[in-house]
């Protein structure tokens, strides 16, 4: 693959000066035992992270993170709505001539990175307030995870609907809606919970691109700018914070599964 060679000038610009290298080493505790905790110590003392005024304090970090989590929280119900809608429509498509759409729509959703619908909406919403950019970010972030969930729910729904207990319940005169609500959905729920962890990760990571395009000053924007500006201390703290958030989400999903799925309680007993 052809590469453009770096010119001497741009190469020189990219060289890190000895002072800056020493500053990075000091800030990140490189070469010291438990040195990776150094940025966290600075945050704890209320100091600004990084080697320039573009760094961030703990309070600012928490505020930006809460903004991104807020966008993710708005995106989750939207994703569930997409999922339910797509699962029901896909079940109908399976029976008719539109069966191929059941494959094409997920590919279309998956093949569309979050930044593309964000770009398409951006001219209309960037300058407007009243939470419209946040809602738009949540909407564009939720499309692919919603369709993905819908595919899983649709498959689980079809499997459950073809089981004997459904036929028995219908044969005994129960209304189809009651069978769906009382018997089928509780059995579909674990499949949904299995996917919530990865979907939450996708929603939070997807909001990075949406925030960048729509100009939202939250965690995603902070992260991308920190990487672009090589603010290593900020990247270290932001990455560990984000990973901790994902662990908390996974634990939350496990607790929820324990509460709603009797089979998981039996498996542990």
């Amino acid at each position: 693959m052809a590469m453009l060679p770096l010119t001497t000038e741009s190469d020189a610009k990219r060289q890190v000066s000895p002072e800056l290298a020493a500053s990075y080493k000091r800030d990140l505790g490189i070469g010291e035992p438990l040195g990776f905790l150094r940025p966290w110590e600075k945050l704890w003392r209320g100091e600004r992270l990084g080697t320039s005024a573009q760094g961030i304090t703990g309070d600012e970090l928490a505020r930006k993170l809460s903004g991104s989590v807020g966008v993710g929280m708005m995106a989750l119900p939207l994703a569930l709505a997409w999922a339910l809608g797509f699962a029901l429509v896909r079940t109908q498509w399976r029976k008719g001539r539109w069966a191929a759409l059941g494959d094409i729509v997920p590919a279309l959703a998956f093949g569309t990175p979050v930044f593309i619908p964000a770009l398409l909406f951006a001219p209309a919403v960037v300058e407007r307030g009243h939470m419209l950019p946040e809602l738009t970010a949540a909407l564009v972030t939720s499309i692919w995870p919603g369709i993905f969930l819908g595919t899983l729910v649709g498959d689980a729904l079809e499997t459950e609907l073809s089981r004997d207990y459904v036929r028995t319940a219908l044969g005994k005169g129960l209304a189809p809606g009651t069978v769906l609500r009382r018997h089928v959905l509780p059995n579909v729920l674990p499949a949904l919970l299995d996917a919530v962890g990865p979907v939450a990760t996708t929603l939070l990571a997807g909001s990075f691109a949406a925030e960048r395009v729509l100009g939202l000053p939250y965690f995603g924007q902070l992260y991308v700018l920190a990487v672009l500006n090589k603010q290593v201390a900020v990247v270290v703290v932001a990455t560990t914070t984000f990973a901790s958030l994902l662990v908390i989400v996974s634990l939350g999903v496990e607790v929820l599964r324990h509460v709603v799925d009797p089979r998981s309680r039996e498996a542990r007993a």
Partner: protein
Amino acid sequence: MSAVPSRARWGLVLLVGLGVLSLVAGRLFPEQLASACPLGVDPMRPDRTVCELAFGGLWVSLAVGLCAGGLGTLIGLLVAAVARLLGGAWEQTILRGVDAVFALPDVLVVMVLQLAGQSLADAGHSGGLGPFGLMVASLALVGWAGPARIFRNRLATLEGQEFVAAARALGGGGTHILRVHLWPALRPFALAVFLSRLPTAILTESTVSFFGIARMEPMSLGRYLGTSYAALIYEGGSRVVLPAWALLVLLVLGASLASQALSASPRKVT
């Protein structure tokens, strides 16, 4: 070819067609493409037409996807094979490590790896990796965990079959069974897993490049979209962005169709 399901055939035809199109249009005859492009020039790069940038980007994105997907699948296959050969507590430990890597969000980790790789390159310790190699390595380092889990589960299923029990009873060792009996049965599935990694690698690369983090030249589809998005926002230039989007969707559609059909098709194990 008759053993390949028709949906998989459509997907493979679409993928190969896009590859050939990008090679012919974007690399072999760029002058003809530039003169015949109905979409005009890119406002951000007036020296290039939209068609040149889109098809050139498709070629680069496809190359990144194929290399990163192939490398990630190979690493996943090796990890799964080693885990199954070791068995017991070692296998469980390896699987927990695989789960930990799998839980990481691709885009973030690739961004961090790009930052680290570029810093090393700037300090003169890149080990010969250019921006393309760095991106492929980053994507492969992130993308091996999914295939490793899938291959491990498939190997465990195959090992439960009678022909493996018979081979064991006849004194076949672990590596012999893996090489002679399991690998032929796993090969078509490995192709399906590779095809499922292809769109993920392409989309992750697109997102990271869109942010302006990767320095790849010639530009991939993601980098092209990242440098041209001002045109869409401020000049209503959907003509600039929509072709690249359509190419991305077609790539993913081809890979998804082929991967799903190949992994779902029942195959006789002999």
